[in-house]
Each structure stands twice: as C-alpha cells, then as structure tokens.
C-alpha cells in the first residue's frame, strides 16, 4: 500500500480531531445537546454505511431497519447470558449473514427487484421473530437493562464512525472500490472487463449491513424495553435514505451534510407537531428529488464549476478586449 498523500493526511487529522471533539462533549453537557449529538452520530454512521453500498451502485436499499432491528434484537435476547461487546459482534454478524442472503437472492438481477425485496424485509423479519417468540412461548417484550448511559453510547458511536470512515476509505482505494466505480458508471462495461459484478455488490452489501447491525446492537440499551414492532421500525430505513440523499452520496463524508440539518429538523418537528412527521418526511423527500437531485454536495459542486466557468469567460473577455 502506498504512503498517505499530504491531502489524505490532512483530512485524516481533521477527521480525527472532529471525532475527538465530539467524544469530549459529555464533559460539557449531559442533557439535550448530548441526546441530539447521539442521534446525529447514530445517523452519521447509518447513512455513511448505507451510502457505502447505495452510493456507487445506485441501488436504493430500504433494508436498514431490518439490519438495525436484528442488531437490537440480538442484544435483547442475549443480554442476560452474554457480555455486551460480544452481543454487538453477534448482532453485526447476524445482520451481515442476512445481508448476504438478500444480496445473493436479488443482486444478480436488476435494481427494482432489490428495492422491492428490501421494502418489506423489516416487516418480514418482524413477523418471523414474533412468530418464533410466540411458538417458543416467550413474552414479546424484552428488557435490556444495563448501566450504559448516553455518553457511553456516544463514545461507541464515535468509534463506529471512525471505523466506517476508515473502512470506506480503504474500500475506495481497493480493487473492490475501483470495481464499484466502474459498475456504477456502466455495469455492462464492468462485466466485459471481467468484474464479477454480482459478487462485488454482495460483498459491499454485506459490509454495509454488518455495520448497520452493529449500530442497532449498540443502541439497544437506549430503548430498555424492546418489542418486535419497536425494533423493526421501518421509519429508520426511510430516514436514512432521505438524509444520505440530502447530503450527497458521491463522497464518503457527503451524508454528514444531510444528517446534521435533517436530524435537527426532524427533532423539532417530532417534538412540536408529532402528528405531522410522515407528512414532513414525504414532502422533504419530494423536495430533495426535484431541487437537489445530487444532494447538498452536488449542489456545491455545481456552484463551484459554474463559478469556474464564469471566471474563464471573464478571462477570455479580458483577452478579447485589448
């Protein structure tokens, strides 16, 4: 592997400082700001993991809630028997395996099949889990009682954020990342130059699903009482898609630009107008597709290229006029 370039080192240092300052927050505030920051970090990790797969492939995954719920549920089922870190690992693995199965079934085919399959995946798993629980005669609600508090969740999520950024960066410079860029530009070309497109997509989907599963497991202590309906809440899938698209999925740090404003907006809406949340989510979705088809990131990129072109025109005019 080649050494880091100057700009990579700079981004790395800035990123590390940013994450470190987020991790210091509990020293200053233990109330609303901390809760909000945990939410932001939660969606930063989820959206970035989502964009790892959906960014280059343009396949819209609505399976986030399913993976997230599997992670949460792994913790809920095992909290009395096994230590928490091991359960996070198990949650991640289970989500990864499910992602692999879904990927193998659908990613050989066109993207529509994948969207439809993931649309109902959380609901499917919720039904199966409910059924299994009632067959085994256990109660539907499970308690997760730990001494982990918001600040511990924040630290774990910060760790996950570091992990997902490093993973994304490593993937980008690996053969897999290169293959994904070709697939994203033209799948037929990718197949003709000898890339196993289905395998590449499945691998990336597994990575993305594993991370989301781990996040679901980490957040389990926050809910304390876990039911199938609560754990497999498909709203998470939709929120992740909308935030990632708002930010822009063509850069690793793009989703961040969408997560921060949307989490704050959604927090305000759900506390002031709790009955209007789906309406707001819907309208935000429509607005983004029409007004910001490439996200905030794409908008700024367009602006920059417009300015550059404008400057070139000015220079040419200057030459033309003696």
């Amino acid at each position, binding site marked *: 592997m080649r050494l880091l370039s100057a700009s990579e080192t700079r981004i790395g240092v800035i990123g590390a400082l940013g994450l470190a300052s987020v991790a210091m927050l509990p020293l200053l505030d233990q109330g609303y700001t901390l809760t909000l920051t945990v939410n932001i970090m939660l969606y930063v990790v989820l959206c970035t993991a989502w964009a790892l797969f959906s960014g280059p492939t*343009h396949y*819209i995954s609505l399976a986030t809630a399913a993976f997230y719920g599997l992670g949460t549920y792994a913790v809920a089922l095992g909290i009395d028997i096994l230590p928490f870190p091991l359960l996070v690992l198990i949650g991640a693995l289970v989500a990864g395996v499910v992602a692999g199965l879904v990927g193998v*079934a*659908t990613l050989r*085919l066109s*993207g*529509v*099949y994948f*969207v*439809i*399959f993931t*649309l*109902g995946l959380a*609901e*499917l798993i919720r*039904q*199966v889990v*409910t*059924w299994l629980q*009632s067959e085994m005669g256990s109660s539907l609600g499970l308690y997760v009682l730990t001494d982990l508090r918001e600040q511990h969740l924040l630290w774990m999520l910060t760790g996950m954020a570091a992990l997902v950024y490093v993973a994304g960066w490593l993937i980008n410079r690996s053969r897999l990342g290169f293959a994904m860029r070709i697939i994203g530009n033209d799948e037929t070309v990718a197949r003709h130059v000898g890339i196993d497109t289905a395998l590449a997509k499945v691998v990336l989907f597994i990575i993305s699903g594993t991370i989301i599963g781990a996040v679901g497991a980490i957040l389990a202590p926050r809910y304390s009482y876990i039911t199938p309906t609560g754990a497999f809440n*498909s709203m998470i899938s*939709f929120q992740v*898609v909308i935030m990632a*698209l708002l930010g822009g999925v063509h850069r690793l740090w793009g989703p961040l630009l969408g997560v921060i404003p949307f989490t704050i907006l959604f927090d305000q809406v759900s506390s002031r107008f709790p*009955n*209007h*949340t*789906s*309406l*707001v*989510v*819907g*309208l*935000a*979705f*429509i*607005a*983004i*597709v*029409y007004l910001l*088809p490439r996200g905030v990131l794409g908008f700024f990129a367009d602006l920059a290229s417009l300015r550059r072109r404008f400057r070139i025109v000015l220079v040419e005019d200057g030459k033309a006029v003696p």
Partner: protein
Amino acid sequence: MSIIITGLLLGGTYALIAVGLTLQYGVARIMNLANGENLVFACFMALWLFSTFGINPVFGIVLIAPASFVLSWAIYRFGLKPLVNRAKSRGQLEVDSILVTFGLMFAFQGLMLLVFGGRDQTYHFLDMAVPILGQNYGLNRVVAFVAAALIAGLLYMFLYRTRYGTAIRAVAVDPVSARLVAVDVPRASAFAFALGGALTAAAGALLSSYYTFNAAMGVTFTMKALIIVIMGGVGDIRGAIIAALLLGLAETAVASLIDPGLTIAATYALFVLVLLIRPQGIFGRRVS
C-alpha cells in the same frame, strides 16, 4: 377446499390492484410506490359514501374510479412528467420515480392520518353467508370477487380488442418503436398511469367492503402488488391476474395452516421462488 375458495376470493382483489400497478410500471415506466395510498384513499371514500349517502361500495366505484383517474393523471402530468423529461436513462428515471413516489407515499399517508385518524375502520355491507360447495363464505367477498372479475374482463376487452388498447400495449413492449407507428407515447403513458390509478381505486372500494382497513396499511399492499407484478411479468395483464390468485391462495393457506401473522412471509417465499427460478415472471420475456 375452503382455503382454495377463500384464497381465490382474496386473490380477485389483489389482481385488480396488481393490474393497476402493472399498467403504471409496464406502460408509463413509473414504479409507483404510492399506489397503496391510492387504494387506502379509495377505502375511505367508499366508507364515506356508504355511511353518509348510503351508496353501495360496488356502485360507489362509478364515482371513486373516475376521481382517482383524474388525481393520478394530475400526479403524472405535474409530478412525474418533469422527471421523465429530465432523466437521461431508464435507470435514472427508475431511481428518481422510486424516490418521488416514495415521498408521495409518506405525504399521502401523513395527510390521511391527519384527516381520518389512525384507527382501524370497517363497515357492514352484505354481511351474510352464502354457501359454496357446502361451506359458508361472506357474501361481500363473493360480490367483490365478481365485481373484480367483471372489471378485469372489461379491461381485457379494452386492451386486446380496441385500437387505443393496442397502442398502449405497444408502448409497454417498446416506447421507442411505438412512436414509429404513430403512437403518442407521452399521452398513452399518462393515460395508462391514470387508468392504473383508477383500477387500484376500484380495488380499494371493493376491498373496504370486507376488509378492516387503516390509514397506514398502504405500504403492505404496494409491496404485495409489486411482487405480483414481478411474478406475472412486468406489463403483462394475464400474468398479473394469475400471480395474484396464486398469492391469495398462498397467503390464505399459510394464514389458516400455520399462523395468520405470517402472511408477509408467505408473500416473500413466493417472491424468492420466482427470483430464483424465473426472474422474468410467468409470462415475461427474458431480457438480455
């Protein structure tokens, strides 16, 4: 035996929803994730017409379907046409239309929750038993099935026996070539999208006469309809009808033999089978 008949009766309504969706996806090339909301809206309309004016839901279709036709046409013309024009490729349009109809789905669902509330709704229409082959079935279900079959028959006549129906099928096969034989593709697409919405609304009116509905159930029906469309082969009416009846059977069998809480699992089992064995659908052609 009772499973087969109940399953077929349920499948009749599914068929109408799926035929609506396959027109929208197969002809207008819009994968309409908000189709289920259209269905739920029709359910509430039928309830309102029935409880306020005493209008029978089967005749209520005469009012509900045209209303939905106009609404769907407006959504296509003002909401989706700009995306069709903007899209550089079929894939781009697919992503954009999925996202926009997704937004529409949430917006409509939010509106209906605000206006009608989140409660389960039901009303009593033809709530009596009819014996078929020694078993009793709800008359409302039988009437809904017959009405669905009639509407599907009319649609079949339109698509396969009239000039404009043939034009619409031509767009479904190949929108570029259809223009060469002087089919107004944008107009046919808008018409098919609106007609699809009207058919789904008709299905909603029928469904409401025997099914307990609520404002949030649209997504489940959208998903089932999408799976039926894929099972039948995109854009194929006959395939959609057969797949819908199969799904009705599978769901009823699972609900009565294993557990009523596993209907989605039954849907998915069928879906996975189709994906593994025949991804182009029962009547679909293999695309290279």
